[in-house]
């Protein structure tokens, strides 16, 4: 292959290194009005009245909007529509939007926001899922505080635990994590040349935004246009609406360009977080390490609104076994409303949390049974032909075993390195292993993608995709797939992306789905164009279609090798646009509400990480020296980008393991929310395994979220290896590690 499998530079990289890429706050506009959102200071309260008179007197203030100004449905949400853009009768978390200022300059809008008086009547508020489920808990939403309860059953766990020779039961807790993308949310609203309410801003899904805005403003879909600006990271935080609703509402009423830039503190306060999960996990195994049963109970805090809470609830349950063969499985997963910050999509949808639990369990089993951590995983690893806990038989591309085998040599090497640890007695070294699996795409529901590619009589080739590239490189991969099919270099194809004015729905940049699902749609569109070009060539030159084929951008004849006509030439002779179209929706089935049975995902990605850690026994400081990260991605369409995802994922996983903790009411900014710097990240050795997925484009699956999932448990297992004590609550901060070390001291005689 000429274009697929090659690490070409990303197509948008030049403008980025030159500082010419235009992010949300960089967009040019002629004298826009400046918006500012007035936000709730109460965790749970009735809104009695919003007084705007004083604010309206400030010079430059054009208008102040409240929920009353919303002409359509003031409820948004990707799965459950329960979240107002502007709160109407009550607020459910600190930071909820209650009013929107539009003013001639940013100073006036800020001043006015301070002068808006909201009269509240306090309601009792709920700060934990346990409290939310108690009988006398105040209701956060009318339908009750339990957002969703999901069950998964396979075999009979009672029998499974009877067969077990060792049973381990522990509770694992994770906390809120911020996406911490660097670009504050920002954008522009205006009426475009066709009279559409137009919003341009960073986003992970322009077509979702379009539907929500149309419904919010009670406009037909075609009267709303969303364009993705260059997006400074996403990680799930930009799957829900951020600035879109405010920009669209103000544009709709004022018919003037409007601009909104969130303050960095506002981003921390109001963008969704990773769901905190509390996981009770019971595993049974034979002496040889073979798992006989797992029983898992998951309790999640979705905060004030549903967002992706249902997804996290179900996905964490489905992935609860880890990438292992478990004959008897029982999982209950509950997601609960509270008045805490709302949680949503964040890289992995609950799988990083559940992997912390199942991989800690696996590590404990290995220690108790004195089996090598790689070996115990190999003995249990999923294989082709095995049925997962949802009863899905795995048909192909199950590379978990291969990742374990490939990584084994590194654990041996790391153990060798541990022997010289005696030089500094206060430093203890450890090695941790962790594996993961991740279902590609949305869970048991249709999540199609569409794409088109056309060739114009002037020779121009245009590829249309609704996919939002958030830095991971999907634009480049889209072009590589089209290039490979047409045999033309990427720079000969113009890409039109993520603008609802020109592109059709590709679904979200989420669930590691774009390479597999949109990649397939692009591949099908390219193949469709290929067929049509052959047909046209056959008609023009009177040669049978079966004798013609496409190679290097030319239609060639098998029988007459001298015939070689560039497709651009064919398009010119046809005189009309020739268009290829492609759609792909992975084959899944809905899950049974009682048992969870079904086919949630068409394919799964697998990985194993090994972390080499050092623990300072005096301070509790953990240093991760090296992470070896071996990923089965099916096929790396762009190996450089796959490696980029892996290394970036390991960094984020390191933060998740050791330092990242959003504390409601306390965390305000990067001053008190620490993410890894260049001095905190381990050296990463990425290893790519390509166990090809037959339904994937050129065999590809996905890697985006997978990259981060195995890192934190590998580090936690490494800490356990070093200090002989285990951390059950993330992050493993200095205090928690020190506490664990001291517990050991107290216990040992």
């Amino acid at each position, binding site marked *: 292959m000429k274009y697929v499998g090659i690490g070409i530079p990303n197509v948008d990289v030049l403008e980025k290194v030159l500082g010419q890429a235009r992010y949300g706050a960089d967009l040019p506009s002629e004298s826009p009005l400046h918006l500012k959102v007035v936000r709730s200071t109460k965790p749970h309260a009735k809104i009695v009245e919003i007084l705007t008179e004083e604010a309206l007197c400030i010079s430059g203030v054009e208008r102040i909007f409240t929920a009353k100004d919303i002409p359509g449905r003031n409820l948004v949400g990707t799965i459950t529509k329960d979240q107002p853009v502007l709160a109407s009768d009550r607020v459910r978390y600190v930071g909820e939007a209650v009013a929107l200022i539009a003013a001639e300059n940013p100073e006036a809008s800020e001043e006015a926001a301070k002068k808006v008086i909201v009269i509240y009547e306090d309601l009792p508020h709920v700060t934990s899922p346990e409290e939310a489920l108690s009988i006398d808990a105040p209701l956060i939403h009318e339908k009750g505080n339990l957002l969703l309860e999901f069950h998964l059953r396979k075999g009979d766990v009672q029998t499974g635990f009877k067969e077990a020779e060792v049973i381990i039961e522990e509770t694992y807790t994770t906390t809120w994590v911020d996406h911490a993308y660097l670009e504050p949310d920002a954008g522009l609203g205006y009426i475009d040349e066709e009279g559409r309410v137009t919003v341009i801003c960073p986003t992970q899904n322009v077509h979702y935004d379009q539907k929500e805005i149309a419904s919010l403003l009670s406009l037909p879909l075609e009267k709303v246009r969303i364009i993705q600006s260059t997006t400074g*990271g996403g990680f799930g935080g930009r799957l829900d609406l951020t600035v879109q609703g405010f920009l669209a509402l103000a544009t709709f009423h004022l018919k003037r360009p409007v601009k909104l830039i969130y303050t960095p503190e506002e981003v921390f306060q109001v963008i969704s977080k990773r769901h905190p999960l509390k996981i009770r996990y019971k595993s049974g195994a034979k002496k040889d390490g073979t798992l006989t049963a797992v029983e898992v109970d998951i309790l999640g805090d979705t905060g004030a609104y549903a967002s992706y809470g249902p997804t996290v609830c179900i996905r964490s349950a489905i992935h609860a076994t880890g990438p292992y063969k478990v004959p008897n499985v029982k999982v209950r997963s509950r997601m609960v409303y509270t008045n805490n910050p709302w949680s949503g999509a964040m890289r992995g949808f609950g799988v990083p949390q559940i992997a912390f639990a199942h991989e800690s369990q696996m590590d404990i089993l290995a220690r108790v049974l004195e089996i090598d951590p790689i070996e115990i995983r190999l003995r249990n690893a999923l294989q082709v032909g095995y049925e997962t806990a949802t009863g899905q038989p795995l048909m192909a591309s199950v590379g978990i075993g291969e990742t374990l085998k490939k990584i084994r040599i590194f654990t041996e090497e790391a153990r060798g390195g541990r022997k010289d640890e005696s030089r500094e007695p206060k430093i203890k070294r450890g090695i941790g292993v962790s594996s993961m699996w991740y279902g590609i795409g949305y869970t048991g529901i249709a999540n199609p993608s569409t794409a088109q590619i056309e060739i114009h009589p002037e020779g121009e080739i245009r590829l249309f995709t609704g996919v939002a590239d958030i830095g991971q490189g999907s634009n480049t991969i889209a072009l590589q797939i089209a290039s490979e099919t047409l045999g033309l270099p990427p720079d000969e194809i113009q890409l039109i992306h993520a603008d609802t004015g020109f592109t059709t729905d590709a679904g979200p940049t989420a669930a590691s789905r774009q390479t597999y699902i949109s990649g397939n749609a692009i591949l099908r569109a390219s193949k469709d164009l290929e067929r049509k070009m052959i047909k046209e060539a056959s008609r023009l030159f009177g040669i049978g279609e079966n004798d013609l084929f496409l190679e290097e951008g030319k239609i060639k004849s098998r029988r007459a090798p001298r015939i070689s006509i560039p497709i651009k030439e064919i398009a010119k002779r046809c005189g009309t646009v020739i268009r290829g179209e492609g759609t792909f929706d992975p084959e899944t089935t809905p899950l049974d509400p009682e048992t969870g049975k079904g086919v949630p995902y068409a394919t799964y990605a697998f990985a194993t990480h090994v972390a080499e850690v050092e623990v300072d026994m005096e301070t509790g400081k953990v240093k991760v020296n090296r992470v070896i990260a071996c990923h089965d991605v099916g096929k790396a369409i762009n190996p450089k980008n796959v490696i980029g995802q892996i*290394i970036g994922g390991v960094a984020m996983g390191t933060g998740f393991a050791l330092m990242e903790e959003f504390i409601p009411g306390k965390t305000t900014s990067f001053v008190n929310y620490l993410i890894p710097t260049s001095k905190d990240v381990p050296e990463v050795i990425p290893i790519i395994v390509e166990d090809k997925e037959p339904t994937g484009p050129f065999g590809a699956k996905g890697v985006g979220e997978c990259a981060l999932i195995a890192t934190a448990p590998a580090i936690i297992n490494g800490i356990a290896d070093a200090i002989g004590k285990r951390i059950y609550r993330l992050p493993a901060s200095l205090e928690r590690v020190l506490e664990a070390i001291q517990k050991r001291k107290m216990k040992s005689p």
Partner: protein
Amino acid sequence: MIRFILNGREIEVEVPPHWTLLRLLRERLELKGTKEGCGIGECGACTVLLDGMPVNSCLVLAPKVEGRRVETIEGIGNKESLHPLQKSFIEFGAVQCGFCTPGVLMSAKSLLERNPHPTREEIKEAISGNLCRCTGYQQIIEAIEAVVNHLKRETI
């Protein structure tokens, strides 16, 4: 009115005394390549060079640059002639979302001007004030190292 050298050219500009250098660059001079990430000197996205040294332009008051030399991402290279660091960042895949990239490039440029042969640890130190959420830094460090190695070869 303040006068300073911006990307090699002397300029004169009117600026309110409370404006930061970042605001001057972005709003008055329309140089949008320098990014505002956190606004409080924590993320490094707004890094520019002041007399060759990296500074968070969100923490520098504009009048303080009077008579000094300011360099921004717009001044280090262009499409036709990229800075070696820019070339290397492209080659090594050191850019993902790209929001931190201008700031990181400025920190790296300053490092190489002051210390043409830095160690890997010195490179890590030099960019430790620039947060990056996408790349995990490794390809950034490799890209800078490659320029260093190239410079070494040239001096030998």
